[in-house]
């Protein structure tokens, strides 16, 4: 019997938390009700650089309901802010990132400088509006273009080279172009929020919007000098994050500080405007690519330089140029990466970090090269397909990239693509087709899971991960059903609480393979335990060895004589145990990584229309083809791909943080002016999966979807715009003014 058929079809594909989400029962961070809770609201800086001379608090203090106003001068000592103060030789943990309310320094515009705590939300918001600061202002620098030109301002994290440097300069057919992307914000729909509650002096409970409950627990324990086990972090539901929940931002310790000071539970919600200045973003980046090929299309040289911004108080860098080192076979590659600190808040990982930015340049450049070579862009990529990883020379665990080209090409109708840009119209609109590839690292990280098999026939699986939307619970239930050979409606998955076994941080498309593996090991152990229990407690199995027994669909039987059998629920009853439980680890894929390169791949195809006069772009269709290993849940996997493509639409066409360099202040920090895609921006979308298991990476067969869903979408759109208009836009977003 095909094991997958065991999952009732009515249940198999629906999200296990679907009913909670459509009825409003799903509880997100700010929605937990605690007795006696009060509200904290941030006051943020209005200059980009300098120090606070004076805080004017009188009006706020006398406003109704105000319990306290915390700022640098009265903020209780936070051990992790200054861990070496007491004993400089003792190793302490220093809070990374902005130490909110630690001193009077201002590092960026919109930095939290004070916090008002009041008994109702309205009173806290109002009183916060009455707090004013007097500054000693310093000259700020947020002008990327200007600052980048000054070599002295750049930090140098990395260089890479194989073969000849700048070989493209001597190539038969070559080009050299510059590409830029503006800063882009995650802006998940749920506002970041933290509720903190102290129990005495050394126990803390925090409800937080976090992609990693365990990570947040660790950060807070270190920051406040607590035992990890005394910090409980609860993350029941996460309303999207896309990377913004990968670390704790200033509001997390701030809520904890506030709760400590007023001795009541405190809820701190980051406003939408503050989401632009306090919880990270994809950094503004400039890239230059030089690329060359022979007339046969074989790449002969790639040079890739990148500069991206960071804050003054923290270095954040990502693998922007790495894609050029390994995505295609090329003998001569050199890359460099530089960081440019400016008077801004710290950027962070955002969906597809590194490759999303890098592939915009590389995949645009390849498209440009294809026109120069007069070779179809898909064909050009096939010609340069890397069989072995170009750096490590290792084979890939699995690589079905060529299959993606074939599947996607057919679905989009690639044969209709105009070979001469700007030559075809439909209903008066210019027609364009484009494609581009995406890639992200795959692997198997560390995770633990607990399985509790009960005599009532149910299996509860647990891990302290959170689910920001991809459908982790659904995937775990599906895999639990497969590994334990039980109907999915007998399985439940519990997550989002640090009291559960150690789960990974949800990021880098690694959750399914890590926890899925732990669940696989848990199920194997449960089966073994059941066999041993049958031998010890059921007379018919007495004196047999576990190896002589087999487990199938909830039944233990003697392999040589299946008429001797017993259901697992009866074994538990015979042993007089209401339940059995095991905790197991996934184990990292360290040994496998010595032998294989591991990546997920995607190829995105776009058809669009461009208005010949106004430059307005109307997407007609997007097809995303992915080699993401085995697809655990077709339904949620497809939704992830579609969602990533929508994110890519924003990156390509609308999203851009604007900064007024005179004040170092964002001018569009709201949804009215920072344009994320809305329903009317999303065309019909198709997703095709190669759906071949990668069992080298993990027994789940999965490789990961979240990042490759977005990586490559923006260049595919840019390439289609060129195909429609003959205009190559190398600075995102592609707004109509750039086309007319």
């Amino acid at each position: 019997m095909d094991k997958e058929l065991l999952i009732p079809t009515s249940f198999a594909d629906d999200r296990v938390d679907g009913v909670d989400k459509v009825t409003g029962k799903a509880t997100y961070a700010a929605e937990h009700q605690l007795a006696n809770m009060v509200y904290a609201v941030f006051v943020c800086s209005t200059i980009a650089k300098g120090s606070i001379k004076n805080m004017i608090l009188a009006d706020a203090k006398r406003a109704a309901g105000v319990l306290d106003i915390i700022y640098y001068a009265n903020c209780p000592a936070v051990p992790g802010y200054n861990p070496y103060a007491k004993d400089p030789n003792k190793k302490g943990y220093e809070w990374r990132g902005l130490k909110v309310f630690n001193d009077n320094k201002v590092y960026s515009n919109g930095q939290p400088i004070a916090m008002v705590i009041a008994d109702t939300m309205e009173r806290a918001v109002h009183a916060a509006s009455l707090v004013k600061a007097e500054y000693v202002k310093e000259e700020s620098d947020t002008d990327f273009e200007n600052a980048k030109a000054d070599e002295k301002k750049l930090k140098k994290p990395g260089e890479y080279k194989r073969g000849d440097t700048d070989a493209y300069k001597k190539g038969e057919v070559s080009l050299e172009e510059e590409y830029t992307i503006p800063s882009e914000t995650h802006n998940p729909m749920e506002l970041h929020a933290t509720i903190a509650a102290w129990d005495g002096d050394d126990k803390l409970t925090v409800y937080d919007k976090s992609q990693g409950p365990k990570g947040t627990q660790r950060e807070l324990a270190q920051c406040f000098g607590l035992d990890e086990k005394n910090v409980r972090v609860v993350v029941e539901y996460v309303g999207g994050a896309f990377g913004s929940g990968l670390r704790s931002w200033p509001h997390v310790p701030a809520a904890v500080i506030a709760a400590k000071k007023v001795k009541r539970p405190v809820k701190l919600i980051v406003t939408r405007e503050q989401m632009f200045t306090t919880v990270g973003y994809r950094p503004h980046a400039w890239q230059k690519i030089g690329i060359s090929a022979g007339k046969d299309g074989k790449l002969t040289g790639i040079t890739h330089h990148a500069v991206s911004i960071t804050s003054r108080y923290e270095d954040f860098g990502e693998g922007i140029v790495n894609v050029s080192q390994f995505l295609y076979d090329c003998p001569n590659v050199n890359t460099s990466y530089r960081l440019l600190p400016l008077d801004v808040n710290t950027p962070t990982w955002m969906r597809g970090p590194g490759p999303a930015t890098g592939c915009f340049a590389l995949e645009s450049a390849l498209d440009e090269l294809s026109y120069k070579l007069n070779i179809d862009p898909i064909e050009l990529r096939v010609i340069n397909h890397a069989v072995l990883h170009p750096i490590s020379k290792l084979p890939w665990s699995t690589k079905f990239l060529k299959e993606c080209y074939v599947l996607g090409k057919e679905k989009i109708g690639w044969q209709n693509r105009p070979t001469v840009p700007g030559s075809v119209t439909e209903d008066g609109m210019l027609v364009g087709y484009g494609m581009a590839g995406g890639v992200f690292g795959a692997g198997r990280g560390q995770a633990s899971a607990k399985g509790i098999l009960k005599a009532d026939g149910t299996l509860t699986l647990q891990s302290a991960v959170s689910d920001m939307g991809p459908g982790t619970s659904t995937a775990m239930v599906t895999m639990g059903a497969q590994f334990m050979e039980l109907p999915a409606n007998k399985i439940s998955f519990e997550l989002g609480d640090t009291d559960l076994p150690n789960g990974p941080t949800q990021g880098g498309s690694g959750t399914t393979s890590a926890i899925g593996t732990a669940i696989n090991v848990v199920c194997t152990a449960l089966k073994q335990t059941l066999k041993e229990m049958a031998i010890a407690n059921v007379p018919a199995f007495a004196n047999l060895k576990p190896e002589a027994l087999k487990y199938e669909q909830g039944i233990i039987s003697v392999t040589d004589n299946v008429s001797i059998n017993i259901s697992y629920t009866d074994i538990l009853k015979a042993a007089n145990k209401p339940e059995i439980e095991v905790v197991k680890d996934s184990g990292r894929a360290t040994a496998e990584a010595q032998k294989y390169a591991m990546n997920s791949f995607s190829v995105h195809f776009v058809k669009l229309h461009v208005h010949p006069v106004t430059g307005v772009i109307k997407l007609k269709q997007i097809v995303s083809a992915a080699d993401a290993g085995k697809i655990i849940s077709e339904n949620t996997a497809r939704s992830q791909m579609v969602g990533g493509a929508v994110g890519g639409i924003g990156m390509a066409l609308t999203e851009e943080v604007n900064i007024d360099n005179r004040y170092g202040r964002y001018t569009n920090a709201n949804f009215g002016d920072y344009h994320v895609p809305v329903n009317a921006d999303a065309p019909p979308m198709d997703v095709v999966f190669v759906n071949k298991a990668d069992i080298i990476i993990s027994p789940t067969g999965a490789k990961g979807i979240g990042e490759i869903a977005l990586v490559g979408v923006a260049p595919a759109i840019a390439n289609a715009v060129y195909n429609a208009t003959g205009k190559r836009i190398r600075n995102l977003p592609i707004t109509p003014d750039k086309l007319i």
Partner: protein
Amino acid sequence: MPTQNKNESRRDFLKKSTALAALTIASPVLTKAGENDEKIAALFEQMPLRLEVNGVAHALSVEPRVTLLDLLREQLHLMGTKKGCDHGQCGACTVHVDGKRINSCLSLAVMNEGKKITTIEGLANGDKLHPMQEAFIKHDGFQCGYCTPGQIMSAVCCVKEGHANNAEEIREFMSGNICRCGAYPNIVDAIMEVKKGGQSL
């Protein structure tokens, strides 16, 4: 900022009139005027409000500055209605007021005197999900679920208004509800199915 000044002078006025208020109401609390200035002012800032939420009648006393969204979430603890921006730019807070979809963050609670409010918690009929809720599950019209209550409330009205005749029209009339997870095509499919089903919503 002028609005703040106005607000403050109203508060100051209320506080100055404490003695008068004490006489009028003759409450023993009010006689300790000095330290209780703020509490008294706060008391005067409450306004009576009657409205019906999901079939339940409420007689409340609220500050005029409280939005309908914050009333629902922070005072009535109906957390199903979400806050995504507080500025009428995202649709996460969509509820029905007398059968029409509105952004509850843009409506002061006191403006809804005598009105009937329906939130996501009031959409299902007991355990029986509303057809739109069913369709959202079937077509996976969400990922994280945060925009979902707003999408569903909006979708129900989109159909009722007669703005769900084809995919293109649905896309336009659902564009006030942002989904950062990008579930748009699935949301359109869900609405198309409900529209085709022809049930009365």
